[in-house]
């Protein structure tokens, strides 16, 4: 009888330990980590706003005539792009209308990036060597978010986190970036 009682007391203690560890894990998941401070999105001052590309790659063209068409420029080579890709893969539909422009050395690497991160459900285009985005818009960095309106580049942001980008997009949502830049 005594070993059975001892066994059950031990089991209760073990269950208490499991509860304790589970609560610690739950609490630590709610505390923003150190990396949160490093999540950012800010207007990209290097990109020339107001330009209207002469040619539009397939996939990107659907953003041309929207009031606010968003293109996210990602690259298989940049670490932040992989983090953004993970966020996109877990997206519930908030970013479903964006187009992904994968700036890669060749199409094969761009496709591998799409497949690796399960981004096939988004509209995407592989920009070989980043030629279109650099020659037409002067974008040489990634991740970059480009906001088009009526065929012109209205806003551009450097970012490394989608929620931070969303906050920045909502802050600058009226398209006043272009107006401000033109006035200056």
């Amino acid at each position: 009888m005594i070993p059975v009682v001892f066994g059950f007391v031990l089991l209760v203690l073990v269950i208490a330990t499991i509860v304790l560890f589970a609560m610690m894990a739950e609490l630590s998941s709610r505390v923003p980590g150190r990396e949160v401070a490093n999540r950012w999105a800010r207007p990209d001052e290097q990109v020339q706003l107001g330009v209207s590309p002469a040619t539009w790659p397939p996939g990107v063209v659907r953003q041309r005539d929207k009031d606010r068409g968003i293109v996210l420029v990602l690259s298989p080579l940049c670490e932040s792009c992989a983090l953004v890709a993970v966020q996109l893969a877990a997206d519930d539909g908030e970013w479903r209308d964006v187009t992904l422009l994968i700036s890669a050395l060749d199409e094969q690497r761009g496709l591998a990036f799409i497949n690796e991160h399960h981004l096939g459900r988004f509209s995407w285009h592989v920009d070989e060597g980043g030629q279109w985005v650099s020659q037409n818009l002067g974008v040489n960095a990634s991740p970059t978010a480009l906001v088009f309106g009526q065929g012109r580049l209205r806003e551009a942001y450097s970012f490394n986190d989608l929620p931070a980008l969303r906050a920045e997009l909502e802050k600058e949502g009226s398209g006043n970036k272009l107006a401000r830049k033109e006035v200056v």
Partner: protein
Amino acid sequence: MADLIVLLAGNAAAASVLLNAGVAKLVSPVPLGRALREVLPAHRQVLDRLARSGAIGRFAGVAEVIAALGLLPATTRMPAAIATAVLGGAFAALGTAGLLRRSVKPCGCFGMASNQRLGATNIVVGLALVLLAPLNAVATAAAGSEAGYEQAIVMLTSLGALLLCLWLHRRAARNAWNLMRTIRQRGEVQ
């Protein structure tokens, strides 16, 4: 004797897994609902409401804990083994759905302890749990005394559940260990 050892090992392992999974889901019930919403899009509207309230995770957690504790007394181990097999079947089915739909959301199978998605691991663990019902049915006659079974299974389950818990939370356990060492070293210096 060999039958008893196999039975004890199987039931203790299953009870350890279910205890850790069940308790973790009771503490962190929301991720499971989100993962189900992802792999079962046809039921998205219903799952949306249940996922937000954490009802799915809590229900699964209670079922797992009851099944785990049911494996311990000799008198209830057979029905508990059948319940465990049903749970195992559900895990395997959800794992298959997760694999087919390329699930990306953490399943919360062990609460916030892991970021694992519904997939191959769920299939393997689920199928292993399904085998528990035939194992208990076959070993019923040859398992020996009930008292011997109960004494051993409780100890084995306690040990197994504790080891699995420490492995699942190995980062937190390592951090706690390092913190204790630092505190002790500072105490020695002073």
